[in-house]
């Protein structure tokens, strides 16, 4: 069993935080690697984040509408 975090990416030199806009998957859902999991929004654009590994989605660490710093874990993907 391994846990892979889904991290808030660095989306430009000056961006320090971004909003979690919409979770496309819920805790317990099975996801393939590269499947779309969550939409995030910076001051300038929205972007879909993909699952970094196949597995089961863990707890949502940043709810919709809240901000997360670059590098923060948004959820964990549990894989066997």
């Amino acid at each position, binding site marked *: 069993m391994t846990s892979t975090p889904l991290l808030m990416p660095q989306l430009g030199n*000056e961006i*320090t*935080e971004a909003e979690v806009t919409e979770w496309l998957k819920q805790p317990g859902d099975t996801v393939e690697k590269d499947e779309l999991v969550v939409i995030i*929004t910076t*001051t*300038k*654009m*929205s972007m879909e984040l993909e699952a970094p590994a196949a597995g089961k989605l863990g707890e949502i660490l940043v709810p919709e*509408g809240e*901000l997360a710093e670059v590098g923060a874990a948004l959820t964990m993907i549990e894989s066997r």
Partner: protein
Amino acid sequence: MPKQLVIEPEHMRRKGEIKFASIPVHSYDRAFSEERAARGDAALKNILRHMMIVREFETMLGTFKATGAYRDIPFTYKGPAHLSIGQEGAAVGAALALAPNDHIFGSHRSHGEFIAKSLAAIDQLDPASLEAIMAEHEDGRLRDGTAAHIGGEGKALAENFMLFGLLSEIFMRSNGFNGGMGGSMHAFFPPFGAYPNNAIVGGSAGIATGAALRKKLARENGICVANAGDGSTGCGPVWEAMNFASMAQFNALWDESRKGGLPVLFFFSNNFYAMGGQTIGETMGWERLSRIGAAINADSMHAETIDGTNPLAVADAVARKKALLLEGRGPALLDVECYRSAGHSTTDANVYRSRDELKAWEAFDPIVRFQTQLVEDGVMTEGDVLEMREIVGRTIEAVTRAAVDPEAAPIVNVEGDPTLIGKLMFTHNDIAPPSSPVPLIKQPEDVAAFRQLKRKSRFGLDADGNILSGMRAITLRDGLTESILHHMTLDESLVAYGEECREWGGAFGVYRGLSEILPYHRLFNSPISEAAIVATAVGHALEGGRSLVELMYGDFIGRAGDEIFNQMAKWHAMSGGMLNVPVVLRCSVGSKYGAQHSQDWSSLIAHIPGLKVIYPATPYDAKGLMASALSSNDPVVFFESQRLYDTVEKFQPEGVPEDYYRIPIGEPDIKRSGNDLTILTIGPSLYPALAAAEALDKSAGLSVEVIDARSLVPFNYDKVLESVKKTGFLLIVSEASERGSFAMTLSSNVSRFAFGDLKAAPRVLGSPNWIVPGAEMESTYFPQVADIIDVVTGEFFPEKKTPAQGSRNWDARDLARMAL
């Protein structure tokens, strides 16, 4: 970049060949007897009469230019006379197939098209409509003048009204259709469907395309015709317009209500010469103009080469193209061959063509051929033809006599009212706040991007005075978005487009979320065609819409130079106030991207009469000024600094209001009060100026007032003059290159207006007159805090002088000698 359109590698990589839709050449072969049976003799005679009117009108102009007299009327006509003698069949034939609500846009050689279109409209309009048109124009003054000095009843009066309004305009008289502000190359009269002629070769291509866009969006009947010459096919903007009119999205992505290509006909009067350059065989690659249709789309633009010397062949082709356009199958292209037997202008010595060639084409004079046909087939006798020519001659003579008479056609009284022309530059009026909800795909509250705005703080500082990030407080970008959202959702006449405007939300995210609520026909991606973006925006506005378009970088202004400088800026004044140009052109000003992506060209725009120019630096100002720009009935160029998009509001303690508000264009704003020195800033220079003011307060005890210009045109000097009265010193900071900049204009004017209050000459601190370097060297280029402090302490307050901190230790006089 819509996701539903997939670029399949398998499809793209398949072997094959491209086939072109064939392009007919001179396919018209209807027997004259058939035309006669279909149209009737009266209509055929009228075709001849209309051609004769065009010929005699232009002959009169040519005669004035050549001899200073026409018949026994002496007159010195100083303006241009680009005659279309030999091309009358094209103009009259096209007009036959057009209705009053079909709109033609012309070239510098379009007297004939104007007259033919107007005569056809007069033929078609009922007497009550004609009377209403004449009564409405200038409160009936031109009609009354026509009746008094030329005469005529019913349609004859309307024809004389039209000829008198046109000739007075050509002679630049106050009773001309455009108040004498348009003249020979620009005259027009919309009620007859004759829209502006254009002195820039191919200038009407983009404008007619934009007008066609408006017809489609407003679901108005009728088509638009871009009249141009063969030489214009060498102009990039003409190609841009043809491609814009053919965009695949009209069929692939737009919903049923607006599906289909734009209803615009590119009508090339091909007289075989681009002034003196010969298009076939010399200056162009094509051997048949119509060939270019194949380059644009799979329909080859329904292109055809037709016989412009035969009005019936032209009418047939235009009618068929019009039917296609009304079915949503536009655009269309006609290559209308019509030899220009007169010179390009009256100074043309025909050095570029042989006598033999001129002689050979004499047999194809449209009037001679048509009248011969009518006589041969017994529609008219030779005597009838002579009588008709006699009557036409008398009409043109009467119109001319009136137009040269200052009592009938008064000279524009600029001497009596020296700012008369200036007062025509702008309407200075606005629409009421928009209030009619328009159909949306979704409501804004259902869109994440707009919900995010609702969660943000309206003020940019927290309770402890710390600056909030752009994720937590409303930014300048958000301010723009809010005003644009308001107008787009409450004013259906407004359309927004540009490169990457839809899914991407504009390259800098100002339209983020809008693609989720607005259908394609309100917000769409344009091709990378800056000339077409601006020209179509102008056409859309001239036709009654409101346009919001974007150039991704201000550096691309050059790509749309003519369209901004000569079209967007000019049509209100050149129409004598008849037309408005409500266009907002957004230009972002870059940084970090070097010489071709980081220039502040606001000065370049401010130099051109006829454009309002805005450059806000705070979210509050950006929102309020964008609302004013979108409400303005004048054209506005709106600059936005990319460095400031994420800037939060630091000045309005209540924050940026959520509700709609406007800030008047042209009013500078005091951002910091002080008594010892005034710094006036343009755009993002506000922030280094404020930082310098803080530093000077601490280090030198100087109290600095900082004024943000906010707008460049118009500009109310009052606040600056009051400030200078108090401080005696003025420093103007801008990121534009100093030479010839708007900051220099401000400096020069303040020197004049407040000479007695100044303790020293105003000083301009701009960017140097060399290329913008890349990000690593940018701080040596745009004025920095240290540069401002160096000027203030080094030049205004030498007693406070400290060792220079900035990098500008150069001698401006030496640099000037070195072309810098």
